[in-house]
């Protein structure tokens, strides 16, 4: 954990990026059990095909958890005020999820200085999978 890192940060600063994966079927099985999201479309190929998909695909919330790691690697979780993600495209088995973020704004709410951070999760070929935004208190 990285305490107090938000103190002097201004718009334009990038968060330390990282890449997770590649996402294996084992990753999806682990996430299925750990998350409690037991939708078979993520782990059961027969079910996925019966639902019209070519293959199982990753839980969107797995990539959201990677983006949350990007945030908590950078700032203490207790300073996190908001976190929102939009699932733009399906993340496939074998994808490597590159997580990036950038501070876009500093603003104030009830005397608390806050930073707005834009987040992206992209595949290894650069295709956008998730976009997100977070609000972090600058302690």
């Amino acid at each position, binding site marked *: 954990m990285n305490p107090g890192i938000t103190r002097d940060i201004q718009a334009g600063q990038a968060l330390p990026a990282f890449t997770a994966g590649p996402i294996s079927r084992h990753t999806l099985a*682990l996430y299925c059990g*750990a998350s409690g999201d037991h939708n078979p479309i993520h782990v059961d190929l027969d079910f996925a095909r019966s639902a019209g998909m070519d293959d199982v695909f990753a839980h969107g919330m797995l990539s959201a958890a990677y983006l949350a790691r990007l945030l908590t690697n950078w700032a203490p979780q207790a300073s996190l005020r908001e976190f*929102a993600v939009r699932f733009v495209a399906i993340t496939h088995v074998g994808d490597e999820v590159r997580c990036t973020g950038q501070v876009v704004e500093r603003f104030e709410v009830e005397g608390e200085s806050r930073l707005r951070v834009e987040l992206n999760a992209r595949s290894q070929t650069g295709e956008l999978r998730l976009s997100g935004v977070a609000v972090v208190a600058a302690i």
Partner: protein
Amino acid sequence: MLDTRQIGAVLPAFDARVDAGRLRFFAKATGQDDPSYIDAEAALAAGHRALPVPPTFFFCLEMDSPRPAAMRELLGIDIGRVLHGEQSFVYHAMAYAGDVLRFEPRITDIYAKKGGALEFVVRETRVTDAAGKLVAELRATTVVRNG
């Protein structure tokens, strides 16, 4: 078409206990290597009172409802047709292993796009601690693929 008269419907509230072992399992599944999310002593050293609930884990706890399919059943949605469209969290306080959190979900919007080919259900969930204090607010948008 989904029944828009269900906008405002209250889904069953439930309590979920945060289990430390489950948090470690979640850390493993998400590649989390920060020891303060894995090891209780490291969490204490980092200023936490126990292993913290990570930012997206509130959604996982919401899946621990005794009736996780309540919304789909109410609206008659086939699980093979659903995608997760959006998810947001507003955080009011940290939560930790050992806490018992109360989840109160309700349906706040239902709408269609592309002539009904896609339908959207918005669910908002209040999360409070044992003292009744607001911990987090969740907002999930489920997408239903029709045809």
